[in-house]
């Protein structure tokens, strides 16, 4: 099961909230260097899956391996230290600290933060802010940021932790089309030139289709499809999950 180049292996992972199976026996693998999209309708269990991988939620069942190492019951801070960074769908800025200080906190801890001095962390933070186009806002307090800028801050801060694997939860929500293009090319750049394996949850279908090498689809907690963007676009189960049964039936009778 654990192949050599598998960065992340998720095995029959489940999370039940009472009777609700938010994540239901989900298994998949992500190879080192891959750029994988994770999609599914609202409430499909995408964020919960991400919380399970990063140790923010306890697992009802299943296992998670990162770089062949069992991280099933690893705490979030340890997960970050071994090289998995994440963003939060509902952004969690460090209130009371400036934009730069937020990103510095990432640069001082995370995977490679330990040996960094405060000044080195500041330098690293500025590099990350430069990449996301936030450098000119470094001295603002986070309370002054717009929602899209909060998302950019989340991304900058996650990058500052020098991750091997980056998990992005709807970082493009609320961005304008041109801004989405910028975000897409940034994610591609992180993946290609910085060699970061990326799983990104996104609602903007155009975005997911355009840059994902592979797409995983969740619906009602279950993995219903997995494959290339072309396969996913044609997959009847996916179309049904997104557009509803009625649409499918109409299509069938018409076609």
């Amino acid at each position, binding site marked *: 099961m654990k192949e050599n180049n598998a960065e992340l292996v998720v095995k029959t992972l489940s999370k039940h909230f009472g009777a609700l199976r938010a994540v239901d026996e989900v298994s998949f693998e992500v190879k080192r260097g891959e750029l994988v999209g994770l999609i599914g309708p609202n409430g499909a269990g995408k964020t919960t899956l991400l919380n399970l991988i990063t140790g923010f939620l306890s697992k009802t069942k299943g296992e998670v391996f990162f770089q062949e190492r069992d991280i099933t019951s690893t705490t979030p801070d340890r997960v970050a230290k071994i090289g998995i960074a994440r963003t939060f769908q509902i952004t969690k800025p460090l209130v009371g600290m400036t934009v730069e200080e937020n990103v*510095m906190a990432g640069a001082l801890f995370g995977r490679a933060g330990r040996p960094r001095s*405060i000044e080195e962390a500041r330098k690293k933070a500025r590099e990350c802010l430069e990449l996301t186009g936030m450098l000119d806002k470094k001295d603002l307090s986070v309370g002054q940021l717009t929602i899209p800028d909060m998302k950019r801050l989340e991304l900058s801060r*996650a990058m500052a932790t020098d991750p091997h694997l980056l998990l992005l939860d709807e970082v493009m929500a609320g961005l304008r089309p041109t801004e989405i293009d910028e975000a897409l090319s940034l994610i591609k750049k992180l993946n290609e030139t910085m060699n970061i394996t990326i799983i990104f949850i996104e609602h903007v279908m155009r975005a997911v289709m355009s840059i994902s090498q592979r797409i995983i689809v969740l619906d009602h907690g279950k993995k219903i499809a997995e494959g290339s963007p072309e396969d996913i676009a044609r997959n009847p189960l996916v179309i049904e999950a997104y557009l509803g049964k009625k649409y499918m039936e109409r299509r069938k009778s018409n076609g």
Partner: protein
Amino acid sequence: MLRQLFENKKIRIIGISAIVLFLMGIPWLITGYWVRLLTSIFMYATLSKAIDLMIGYLGYVPFGNVVFFGLGAYTTGIAMSHGIPFPLAMVMGALISIMVCIFIGVPVLRLRGHYFAVATVGLNGAIMAIALNATALTGGAMGLTFPVLPAPPEIIYRYFYYMMFALMVAAIIVSIIIVKSRFGYAVRSIKANEEAARALGINTTVTKTAIWIISAIITSIAGAIYGFWMSYISTMDVFNIMIGVTCILMTLLGGAGTIIGPILGALIFQFLSEMVWSQFLEFHLGILGVITILVIFFIPGGLVASLKESFTRAKVQHKEAGS
């Protein structure tokens, strides 16, 4: 103008040196009463600094932090009555406080702030009860007497004045170092958002316990010095929860999470209580409460924050007027 003065490094160093020199020399020029009053101000300032490490920097309110004051005082007193010299006895008090922090902190600091606040009150009650009942060791309800220094009162007053002053300076320096360090970033990140802090790789339980230990060490040393200074302590006296509450009020008044806020708060409170409230003993607590409510309503960030704000405003107006 005033702000520029503060921001000029040279002027700041001269100003701070002047204050330090003044405070070093003053006990030779004033009466014992004033020396004692200043010593008690330093003590409250130190305790407030220690509590502000938790409130202002970490965002947790340790209502029962006075437990370390009592532990420091009692451990030192018991050790000294067995012939152990004061510095060593003081270190023993700090070590016991550290142990309590680790045993209690690791399980309790996993929890959110309000549980921790309540747990510290329970801890204080429990340790106070132990101190009260371990009569053979602590003297129980009779209290505990320290060996008295063989010197005339004025010398003794100055001795404790300098000790408390040194401890306060140490507490200030510690807080400055913490704010600028990696550890300080961890503490501030936890205050800002505990989940985000964990996602960045910060071990929140260890960090919270560590800052609590620093707070406890300072508090227990203050307790050790206090006990030796008073030469007699009782559980009602050094485990009095009101000491902690007063320090929390001082911190809020001066400004939580600022370098000099807790010092300023302690100074104002102690002067007021000495000058004004001692005339109306029965209303003491009532006045305290009223002042706190006024402070929370009208200067939510504390005095330091509102002073800073008015400086900035003055600066902006100055600029606007100039352009």
